[in-house]
């Protein structure tokens, strides 16, 4: 029986990709509760609202508006991103028939889709081995899964478009003079550029530089220009149609990028030109220093392959090599835009590094043997041998390092990792009860979740997740200045959460809450009482 080589290669890739999905969804697998940082909550909230309430929305519901109402400078109180990404999460909640797993699974699929697009493009241009090696490296790329965990969901997916946009433009240019020339690839370039803009404008800006550079490289190489007015006009129209699908969100980019919010924070110096990463010290408190370290993000063992791969591209300078160089230089420019006074989201651009570094490393490994100009019969086997060594290093160095950051225990509400940040089962069920039973105009205020300075940044996330799950404005009781009004208002439910007090052995808060129930809530009715969480509503007897 003859085995179809393409089929086997695709099967191998599918297995690698399924492993990526398994690896990236570990925090979800044992506990079906939502997790992540602030941004994750917002993206969950938007997709979840559409599906759960069975309607799209123009203006933000109160529990989202309270935090994101002014994020859209162009049209306040509306979505701050085009709804494309969030609607896809909402669709999957409907298809999946559950609230949490479908959204988090779909997000993982979209966040890891860059593995598919990098594999597809590198396989089309350089063959299976460099493609599969690139894919394996990206599976374990912390600069990819860390922002995914933090909640920069749309941005992760938007980066998946960059290889495809570049590939389409490549196909258009290299076939420009051929009989089979078809403008469809330029139209796809415009289409995918427009979609990437809808998902996250940053990815679009990334690809613009690379497209311009690739055009210049090809024009210089072939000593000619490629201009077809009809093709260009149709492509611009395609882009504009997509742009005007969601004008409130897309016009937001202009006030956003004309601002000078962060420039003064960065100390500009010429040494920046010679460093790939921004200075870790400029991001203390928001991004861990390891995020800026080559050793910790890629592993030092990849550096020789990166150098060899880069040398191969520069020496060969075929169209496909120039494409990767344009991609790399485009990213370099985006990463150094602080030199031009635009420092916003600089660390986020860094998260696109592995998508181009990995293919170059893989090309370095596979083409290493080609640098030896002597022909010998076992050259092909040596190539496979180097590929196996490459995989061995990826699995023995990168995978364990990745597992330390991304594993089943992160955001576990029953361990130290997620105790203060993630909803435990009781809190999730109470929040779900509020969603199902409290009128829309009701807000919730919570006692029992620690609010002291040393834990507040963590427990604020728990409060926000409660709001996300309950779809009601949810606030700490302790910080309210209108406590008296709240206690006499039918529009405020009081939640007493005893679930954290036991593990913390916090007798003082327990006594306070018991006393609070007896005195302050004497005119309230207990409407929910399960697993150490009580909810009261104002109902004078």
């Amino acid at each position, binding site marked *: 029986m003859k085995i179809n080589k393409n089929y086997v290669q695709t099967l191998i890739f599918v297995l690698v990709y399924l492993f990526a999905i398994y690896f990236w969804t570990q925090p979800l697998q044992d506990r079906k509760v939502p997790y992540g940082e602030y941004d994750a909550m917002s993206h969950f909230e938007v997709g979840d609202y559409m599906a759960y309430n069975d*309607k799209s929305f123009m203006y933000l519901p109160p529990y989202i508006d309270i935090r994101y109402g002014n994020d859209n400078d162009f049209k306040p109180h509306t979505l701050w991103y*085009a709804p494309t990404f969030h609607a896809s999460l909402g669709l999957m909640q409907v298809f999946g028939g559950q609230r949490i797993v479908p959204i988090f699974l779909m997000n993982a*699929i979209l966040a890891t889709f860059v593995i598919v697009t990098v594999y597809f493009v590198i396989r089309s241009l350089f063959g299976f081995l460099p493609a599969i090696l690139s894919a394996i490296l990206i599976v374990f790329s912390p600069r990819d899964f860390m922002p995914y965990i933090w909640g920069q969901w749309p941005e992760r997916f938007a980066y998946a478009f960059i290889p495809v946009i570049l590939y389409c433009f490549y196909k258009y240019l290299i076939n420009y003079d051929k009989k089979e020339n078809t403008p469809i690839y330029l139209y796809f370039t415009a289409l995918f550029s427009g979609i990437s803009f809808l998902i996250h404008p940053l990815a679009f800006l990334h690809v613009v530089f690379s497209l311009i550079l690739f055009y210049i490289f090809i024009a210089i190489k072939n000593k000619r220009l490629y201009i077809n007015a009809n093709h260009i006009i149709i492509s611009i129209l395609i882009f504009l149609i997509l742009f005007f699908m969601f004008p409130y969100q897309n016009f937001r980019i202009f006030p956003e990028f004309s601002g000078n919010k962060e420039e003064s924070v960065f100390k500009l110096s010429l040494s920046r030109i010679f460093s790939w990463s921004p200075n870790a010290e400029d991001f203390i408190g928001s991004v861990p220093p390891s995020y800026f370290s080559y050793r910790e993000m890629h592993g030092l063992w990849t550096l020789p392959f990166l150098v060899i791969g880069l040398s191969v591209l520069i020496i060969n300078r075929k169209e496909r090599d120039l494409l990767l160089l344009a991609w790399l230089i485009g990213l370099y420019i985006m990463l150094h835009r602080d030199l031009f006074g635009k420092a916003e989201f600089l660390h986020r651009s860094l998260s696109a590094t592995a998508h181009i570094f990995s293919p170059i490393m893989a090309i370095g490994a596979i083409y290493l043997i080609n640098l030896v100009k002597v022909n010998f019969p076992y050259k092909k086997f040596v190539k496979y041998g180097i590929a196996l060594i490459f995989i061995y290093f990826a699995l023995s160095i990168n995978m364990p390092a990745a597992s330390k950051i991304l594993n089943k225990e992160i955001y576990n509400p029953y361990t130290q990792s997620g105790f203060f940040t993630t909803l435990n089962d009781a809190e999730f069920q109470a929040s779900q009860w509020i969603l199902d039973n409290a009128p829309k105009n009701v807000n919730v205020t919570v006692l029992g979740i620690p609010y002291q300075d040393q834990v507040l940044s963590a427990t604020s996330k728990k409060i926000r997740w409660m709001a996300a799950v309950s779809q009601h404005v949810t606030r700490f009781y302790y910080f309210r200045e209108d406590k008296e009004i709240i206690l006499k208002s039918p529009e405020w439910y009081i939640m007493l959460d005893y679930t954290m007090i036991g593990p913390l052995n916090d007798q003082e808060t327990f006594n306070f809450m018991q006393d609070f129930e007896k005195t302050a809530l004497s005119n309230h009715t207990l409407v929910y009482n399960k697993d150490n969480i009580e909810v009261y509503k104002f109902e004078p007897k």
Partner: protein
Amino acid sequence: MILVILIFSFAIFGMAGARVFIGIILITMPFFLFLNNFDMAEGEKYVFSILLGVTIFPSLTYILGLLMSFRISMVITLITLILLVFVFKKFKIR
């Protein structure tokens, strides 16, 4: 291949996982049928149609969902896109 992914989705994420996978196939299908009309490599058709399916389909559903139920707008979007593909195919043959 589809069976492998379906089994994986069900094994790790239960019925919700399997249904999400089927959902992705459904929203991707109209675009795959559309791209099938062009002389493109198989890989291109698959990757492009998934990218279009998980973006254009939800965008259209969202817009329709401003006027009607989100679920109904999903169904209308799916039917409309499939009809458009057949109209395009007929138009192309002529």
